């Protein structure tokens, strides 16, 4: 049962990732670069977030419904969307003063 479920999940995850556009973001000195990410509206996209700081960060966004910890010097991916046109702010919870950004769906 577990195995079957696991396989189903894997297949679902793989099929979902097949044709998804990717967008690169870097965390450096507790800033997101670029801080403004323009993505197409109405479709799922994948953010590839590379944490170049040695310390962990948590990518968090209430409007995108996401929170994910990214260990120091590690890369994580976050699937977002499909989004309606608009701007969706996000931040790094561990360094909220500086780590701010926004996804703009258009």
């Amino acid at each position, binding site marked *: 049962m577990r195995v079957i479920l696991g396989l189903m999940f894997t297949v679902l*995850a793989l099929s979902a990732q097949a044709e998804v556009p990717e967008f690169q973001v870097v965390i450096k000195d507790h800033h997101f670069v670029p801080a403004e990410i323009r993505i197409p509206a109405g479709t799922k996209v994948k953010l590839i977030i590379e944490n170049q700081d040695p*310390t962990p960060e948590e990518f968090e966004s209430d409007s995108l419904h996401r929170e994910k*910890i990214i260990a120091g010097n590690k890369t994580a991916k976050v699937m977002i969307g499909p989004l309606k046109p608009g701007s969706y702010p996000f931040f790094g919870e561990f360094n909220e003063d500086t780590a701010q950004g926004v996804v703009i769906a258009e």
Partner: protein
Amino acid sequence: MLSSLIIVFREVLEAALIIGIVCAATRGMDKRFSMVAIGIILGALGAVIVALFADVVADFAEGMGQELFNASVLLTVVVMLAWHLIWMAQHGAELASRANKTGSSVREGSEPLTVLILLVGLAVLREGAEVVLFLYGIAAGGSSASMMIMGSLLGLVLGVLVGFALYGGLIRIPTRSLFAVSSALLVVLAAGMAGKAAKYLIQGDFIPALGYDLWDTSALISNNSIAGEVFGTLIGYDAKPAGMQVVFYVVALVLILAGMWWAKQKHPVASFTKDSQAAA
């Protein structure tokens, strides 16, 4: 300092609220405090281990290991809570009458106490791992580390105090109604955790969202406010839930209530005497 206080407070709060309710809900049970203490210690140790291997966990399941891990821990806690609630539905009346009469604990409180340990341990583990990672970041960060660590400690203390306050409030309730109140609290707590598990599974792209922002009550209580955090833990409040979150919430709620109802039918409260209980 304030930011670290708030971050740690938020993480500690969820575990503290759960432990506060669990302590009140198990009033009258033998050795419950030592079980809870063991759960907290094991959970804290587990949190350090999970934090150490955070990047290993993260790389599982095509990079969605963190989501899978969080959802699994949450769903395990839901199952533990369901087990506890159904057990209490069977034996609660007897526990209440004994706790009332003698104020002493029930010797043959036969609920597998390991459930308690696991429940508390997992609650501490999930939130604790994040605190450990955050503190590691501070420690590695340098300059303002001591202020940040002061803030974190304050946040920890405040979170624990809220847990104690909740417990203190709950045990003032007369024992007989305490079990009804704490059971009701635990049922919605469990349903809320099921909803949160769905949120992680959606984020990991394991299950469809069935529509985001089914409704939006951010203007009333936003998810990022402390009230949002408290209600989020206690009753699974989410200002902007996805459809699948609501499905998980309702299914967990219905299943647990049905289980409790079934357990009560099996052991009608009216027929409870010490002897029939001993025989059962």
